[in-house]
């Protein structure tokens, strides 16, 4: 696959129609596109993936150029398109993605569906279109989406890609790599000879060709075999779907186990937090009770305590002058005075008239006789004072004791609160192990369910297969007795022989190609990253990093950023190199294509030494390299790639919404 040109119309900041042609010369196979930050390097790189697969990494789903969008009038319609011209397997393709945008009368924009078309130039030079329903399939054959990100990649996200490569990929990924390595002719031949289940294949087609007039049982057996094939196909489909489910569940279980391990301390912290919260309640209750007791005691005894001195002074005064104070006349009541005043004459016959001396003397006497008997009051006051003073003796001690208890509770409560806050802070970045555990239990159950379902399906499939074999064998005995049917059996036997032969050969060839890829990837890795590591591929094309200098240490190891970057480059370069090798005549059964590399900011993650290595390796390995780099990296790229550069372009950024692609001289 060689990219010839890319035409964009109003795609993001590329206003209007703009075209860029790529270098396709075998020697000068590098296209360098320079651009300042924010000028559209990533947008252009994303234009490839949008054109081919309808996918971008932009947060804003609106692809229409903002400048064009702003100028749209109500009711006006505009379109965004990306048209990529490429050559694949000797055929010239024009792949187009188009999306319409319409502004309604209220000024709101509606976005249409992406329209995807693939046109190709037929042998007679006429342009033909792949039917719409087959377009996605043909795109998959040209370059599967699963692998596209390795050919159209963003240097800034290369670390994540390396992790993905090492983490374990799906069967689909392995199949896509196999296809790129040229093994698809093998798989097609095998599938055409004997496809799975009821799908059309040479062997299955012969089943429907038996002459059933010779023996009616042949038709019955064929019907039984068809039914069994259909059942087996359903089981196979389910088993195939389950692979994805099992992979997903296993990954979840593994991630949850890792998270639980990482967050184990959070469980202890959460337990401690619960205890502290419980203690906080107890402390607050005790504090409230103690404070209430203190206040009760204060309210009851504080007035007396504070009046103690006054009371003591009064008691002293009363003790010293008690006799003087008591001037009462025994058995005389205020009512006696009232009577004397009323009759106007005392018992001593002194005249009592309001205001005279006798009247005044009698009234003064009221203060000392009942009901206002001062002596009694004083006696009662003395007694009360004595009691109160007695009670206040322990008040101070009691109060101080209670208060210090309260202070202790307060200190405890403050410390308790601080510890709770500290735990909450520590727990902030951690996950709740309880929740993780519940999640893990859920996935464990799902995994076990899948396991038992698989076991039951395997058993059922086995039964059906042996049943089919038995019926097939019985039918075989019958068909061999008839001349017409016998010839069908002969054709079938040949097809079976070819199928077995190719299947066996495929396994050998796939192993050989994988081993070869392993060597190539490892060699490139060692060229880029000259450390004491090597790369190894497992049967699913997962990459593992092995330490060379430690004999017997075969575990995959954690990698640094430089290693991660080198792994991804080595993998991409290795697959591309192998794809080229498979074109050579000695690889009779391999069919593949050279592939381009489209890289956005690939050098940003490398140091100077590795930039030089990568710049030397990639143009030799890949058929075509298209590289988007910062204007500041222009000199270094020119320096290391100069003899390979076939085309240069630069982004002319007019403003945030408009960039134009310009050709550039050296």
């Amino acid at each position, binding site marked *: 696959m060689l990219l010839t040109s890319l035409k964009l119309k109003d795609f993001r900041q590329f206003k209007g129609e703009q075209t860029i042609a790529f270098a396709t010369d075998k020697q000068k196979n590098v296209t360098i596109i320079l651009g300042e930050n924010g000028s559209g390097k990533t947008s252009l790189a994303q234009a490839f993936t949008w054109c081919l697969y309808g996918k971008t990494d932009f947060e804003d789903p609106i692809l229409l150029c903002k400048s064009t969008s702003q100028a749209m009038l109500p009711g006006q319609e505009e379109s965004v398109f990306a048209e990529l011209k490429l050559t694949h*397997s*000797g*055929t010239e393709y024009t792949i187009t993605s188009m999306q319409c945008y319409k502004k309604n009368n209220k000024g709101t924009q509606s976005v249409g569906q992406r329209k995807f078309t693939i046109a190709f130039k037929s042998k007679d030079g006429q342009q033909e279109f792949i039917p719409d329903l087959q377009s996605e399939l*043909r795109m998959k*054959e040209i370059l599967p989406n699963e692998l596209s990100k390795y050919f159209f990649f963003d240097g800034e996200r290369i670390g994540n890609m390396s992790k993905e490569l090492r983490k374990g990929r799906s069967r689909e990924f392995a199949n896509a790599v196999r296809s790129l390595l040229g093994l*698809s*002719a*093998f798989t*097609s*031949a095998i*599938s*055409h*000879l004997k496809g799975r289940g009821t799908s*059309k*294949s*040479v062997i299955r*087609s*012969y089943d429907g060709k038996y002459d059933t007039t010779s023996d009616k049982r042949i038709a019955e057996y064929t019907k039984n075999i068809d039914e069994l094939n259909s059942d087996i196909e359903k089981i196979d489909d389910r088993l195939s779907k389950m692979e994805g489910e099992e992979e997903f569940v296993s990954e979840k279980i593994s991630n949850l186990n890792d998270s639980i391990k990482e967050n184990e301390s959070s469980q202890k912290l959460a337990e401690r937090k619960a205890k502290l919260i419980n203690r906080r309640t107890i402390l607050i209750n005790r504090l409230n009770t103690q404070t209430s007791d203190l206040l009760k005691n204060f309210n009851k005894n504080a007035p007396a305590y504070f009046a103690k001195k006054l009371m003591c002074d009064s008691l002293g005064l009363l003790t010293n002058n008690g006799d003087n104070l008591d001037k009462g006349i025994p058995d005389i009541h205020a009512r006696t005075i009232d009577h004397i005043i009323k009759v106007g004459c005392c018992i001593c016959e002194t005249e009592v008239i309001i205001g005279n001396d006798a009247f005044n003397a009698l009234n003064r006497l009221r203060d000392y006789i009942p009901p206002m008997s001062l002596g009694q009051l004083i006696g009662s006051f003395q007694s009360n004072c004595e009691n109160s003073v007695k009670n206040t003796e322990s008040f101070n001690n009691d109060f101080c004791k209670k208060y210090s208890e309260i202070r202790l509770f307060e200190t405890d409560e403050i410390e308790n609160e601080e510890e709770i806050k500290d735990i909450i802070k520590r727990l902030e970045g951690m996950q709740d192990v309880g929740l993780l555990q519940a999640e893990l239990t859920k996935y464990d159950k799902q995994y076990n369910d899948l396991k038992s379902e698989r076991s039951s399906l395997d058993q059922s499939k086995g039964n059906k297969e042996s049943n089919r074999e038995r019926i097939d064998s019985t039918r*075989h005995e019958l068909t*061999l007795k008839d001349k017409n049917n016998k010839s069908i*059996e*002969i*054709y*079938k*036997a*040949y*097809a*079976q*022989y*070819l199928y*077995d*032969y*190719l299947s066996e050969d495929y396994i050998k060839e796939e192993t050989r190609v994988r081993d070869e890829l392993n060597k190539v990837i490892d060699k490139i890795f060692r060229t880029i990253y000259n450390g004491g590591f090597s790369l190894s591929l497992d049967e699913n094309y997962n990459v593992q990093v092995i330490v060379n200098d430690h004999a017997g240490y075969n575990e995959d190891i954690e990698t640094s950023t430089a290693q991660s970057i080198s792994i991804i480059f080595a993998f991409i370069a290795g697959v591309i190199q192998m794809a080229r090798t498979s074109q050579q005549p000695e690889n*009779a*059964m391999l*069919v593949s294509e050279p592939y381009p590399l489209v890289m956005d900011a690939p050098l940003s993650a490398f140091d100077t030494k590795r930039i030089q290595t990568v710049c030397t390796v990639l143009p030799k390995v890949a058929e075509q390299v298209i590289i988007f780099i910062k204007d500041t990296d222009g000199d270094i790229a020119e320096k290391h790639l100069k003899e390979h550069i076939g085309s240069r372009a630069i982004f002319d950024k007019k403003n945030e919404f408009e960039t134009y692609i310009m050709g550039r001289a050296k």
Partner: protein
Amino acid sequence: MSNYNTTTVNDVEIDKDKAKQLLRWIIFTEKNNTKTKAKNDQQMVAAIQKKIEEVVKCY
């Protein structure tokens, strides 16, 4: 009559030379079709069937 260049599949004698001829043809055809996509799966199945019948009948 069996000879050193035959094998048996499902009680049917297979001539390995014929099989080799068929394999070469299938490999060539599948490789070409992978590139050109001229035939769909059903057409390829029919073409392989036809070729097997031709080759096996010839001998």
